[in-house]
């Protein structure tokens, strides 16, 4: 993974000093809250329902074991012993103290971490495929370009006061695990007819109040033009994005209002002026960054080690876990292991300091010291020898990180919701917990098959409900928590936004509604259809009918 040199380190150290000064000025009264708020947001510090919340950046979801141990320490020392992994591959701490935040950032800087631009109207954490580097269908490791973009976008003097937040995602594979189509800019690596690798550039995707699937503005962008093209897009957005209305200030609104053709023309005209200039990315620099993401020292393994096969036969629980939580690796004898942060009835995405420390140890022991964070709020060990899987699994069971539910209905994605978030209208976590307990039977979960349930506590959609196979949006109806259900969303290369199924359900009824939806699917599915396939075949009507039949 990327390692800081003295330049990277100087920048984070100077940032810590700057923020320390800003906090001191705030406490002394030299800065009002209105003046201070954008500054603290640009260091990931929110004022939430109960305390300050700090969102620490995990660039493209990649962590070293040392960094994960530091996060455990932060949770222990400065918080209440846990952290929450988010839908943008970051981590959040919920009980933070303003005056301690500069110290927290200083500690993070000692392990090459920070909270820079994890909030605010600037370019946020660039997210990428959590299987980067190990997925069989990968063309190039998207983290190479995510790191290049990270540096270009950090403290960019022109783009630090944008109309609104700006989110970029990169996929290096045709199967998009990074949800590029619902980002402000999505970059999808692919090859042109000449076999050259480059990017499809998509703009204007997003969730929230007005969910939109991104539009392709350039089908193929050679790698060397990556930064100049991004600069052109951001410049157009910075100049023309609306600043008068908070709800109409994302780039998706701009693309929609001028039309994708006109928007593309504006970008291309600007780009013609700046391409081939100082932002052109030399091949040597790409190779230099690629060197940081070189494969680890794999050993030559048999792809079907005898022990592993025997354990599969002997221990059906192990076999069940392999089936759901282990993904094929491009290297023989290795496997990708997803650690479920979704225990039955648990809080999706939360991990205790003890769990984080333990996972760091397991990463060192079994996966070359590296951990990934997914935007579905799980962790991944990407390079586990198959012959180590059984021992790893046993340890994960002890740690409650082995629930065999990845990609299944128990693998629920939920934002913090009204329990934590000042923006929320309803709680999301208790709904996730109740659904998870209701569907707790692991055999049943397997039978239901792939089903992504995503829950947001408000219209800002941090739970990504628009792209849930079943999406749940918490709303406030006359002071009561109600839940609107959508069906058929998807965040992958065949992205779609969910359809609202009908009137919202009360907190008491929403779990039953989910059950009815699942039962409807089970009744009519054909062949090996997943829920999403069935939905796309039969549409909303059969579900709507069953759900509202009583009325």
């Amino acid at each position, binding site marked *: 993974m990327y390692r*800081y*040199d003295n*330049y990277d380190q100087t*920048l984070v150290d100077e940032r810590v000093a700057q923020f320390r000064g800003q906090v001191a000025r705030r406490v002394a009264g030299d800065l009002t809250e209105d003046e201070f708020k954008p500054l603290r947001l640009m260091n990931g510090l929110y004022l939430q329902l109960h305390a300050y919340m700090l969102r620490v950046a995990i660039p493209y979801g990649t962590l070293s074991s040392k960094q994960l141990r530091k996060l455990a320490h932060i949770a222990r020392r400065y918080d209440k012993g846990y952290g929450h992994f988010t839908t943008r591959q970051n981590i959040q701490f919920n009980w933070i103290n303003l005056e301690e935040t500069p110290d927290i950032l200083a500690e993070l800087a000692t392990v090459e971490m920070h909270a820079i631009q994890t909030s605010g109207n600037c370019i946020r954490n660039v997210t990428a495929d959590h299987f980067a580097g190990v997925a069989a269908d990968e063309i190039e490791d998207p983290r190479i370009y995510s790191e290049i973009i990270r*540096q270009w976008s950090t403290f960019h003097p022109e783009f630090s006061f944008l109309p609104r937040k700006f989110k970029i995602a990169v996929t290096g594979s045709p199967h998009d695990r990074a949800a590029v189509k619902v980002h402000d800019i999505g970059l999808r690596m692919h090859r042109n007819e000449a076999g050259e690798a480059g990017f499809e550039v998509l703009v204007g995707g997003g969730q929230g109040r007005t969910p939109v699937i991104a539009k392709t503005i350039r089908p193929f962008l050679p790698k060397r033009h990556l930064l100049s093209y991004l600069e052109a897009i951001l*410049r157009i957005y910075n100049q023309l994005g609306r600043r008068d209305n908070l709800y109409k200030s994302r780039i998706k609104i701009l693309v929609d209002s001028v039309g994708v053709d006109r928007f593309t023309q504006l970008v291309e005209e600007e780009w013609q002026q700046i391409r081939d200039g100082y932002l*052109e990315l030399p091949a040597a620099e790409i190779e230099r960054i690629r060197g940081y993401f070189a494969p680890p020292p794999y050993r030559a393994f048999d792809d079907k080690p005898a022990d592993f096969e025997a354990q599969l036969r002997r221990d059906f629980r192990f076999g069940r876990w392999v089936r759901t939580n282990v993904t094929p690796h491009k290297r023989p004898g290795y496997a990708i292991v997803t650690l479920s942060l979704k225990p039955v009835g648990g809080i999706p995405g939360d991990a205790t300091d003890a769990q984080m420390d333990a996972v760091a140890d397991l990463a060192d022991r079994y996966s070359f010291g590296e951990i990934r964070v997914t935007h579905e709020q799980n962790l991944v060990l990407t390079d586990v020898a198959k012959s180590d899987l059984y021992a790893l699994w046993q340890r994960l069971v002890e740690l409650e990180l082995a629930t065999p539910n990845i990609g299944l209905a128990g693998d629920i994605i939920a934002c913090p919701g009204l329990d934590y978030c000042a923006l929320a209208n309803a709680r999301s976590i208790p709904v996730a917990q109740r659904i998870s307990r209701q569907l707790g039977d692991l055999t049943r979960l397997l039978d239901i098959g792939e089903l992504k349930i995503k829950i947001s506590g408000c219209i800002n959609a941090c739970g990504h409900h628009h792209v849930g196979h079943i999406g749940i949006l918490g709303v406030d109806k006359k002071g009561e928590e109600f839940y609107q259900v959508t069906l058929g969303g998807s965040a992958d290369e065949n992205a779609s936004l969910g359809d609202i199924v009908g009137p919202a359900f009360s907190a008491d009824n929403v779990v039953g509604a989910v059950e009815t939806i699942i039962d409807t699917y089970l009744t009519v599915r054909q062949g090996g259809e997943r829920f999403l396939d069935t939905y796309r075949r039969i549409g909303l009507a059969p579900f709507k009918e069953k759900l509202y039949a009583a009325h």
Partner: protein
Amino acid sequence: MPLIRTTGPVEDPWTTLKDEDPLPADGAIIVTLARWQANRDALLARPGPLGIFLKSDQPPSLIAADIERFDVIALNFPKFTNGRAYSSARLLRERYGYRGELRAVGNVLRDQLQFMLRCGFDSFEVSATADVATWLKAFRDFSLAYQPATDARTPVTALRQRPASARRIDHDEEDAPPARRSDDDAAVEASVVCAGYWAY
């Protein structure tokens, strides 16, 4: 409102005219775009330098053809969160070749000064209550920049090309020397606008 440059507070010889103010016979005046467009000939006929004030929604392309006429261009930040003028500044400098004084006015806050400087501003109208001595330090909040911008600062990407200037950080090394800034930056800052990103 006090005017500062990176060197410190400066006298402001310019008078900013409201549209309804009569044109003084001479002296340095800054007028709005509307006034410039309505009274171009009269303004050009005056002795005395001319400046123009652009609102955040007035793109620099509107004055590109006349860039030589202005000795100062004032770009407005109506609210500090409105960052349009950062782009306008860069375009004025890099696209239209403007070499005069580029002034940041409006809601200008201390923590933005370095961003503004990097985008090509060279004078800053700051709040009357600003403690100028401490505000000046903000121009040097960061000794490095990752990306090239309008200022002549060599970006980190180019610094890395120089032999032996970039080192991996090893935090386990108790005696590792502290990170240092490249000595060449001061010389570079005096030179060409927009140093190369990768190869200086």
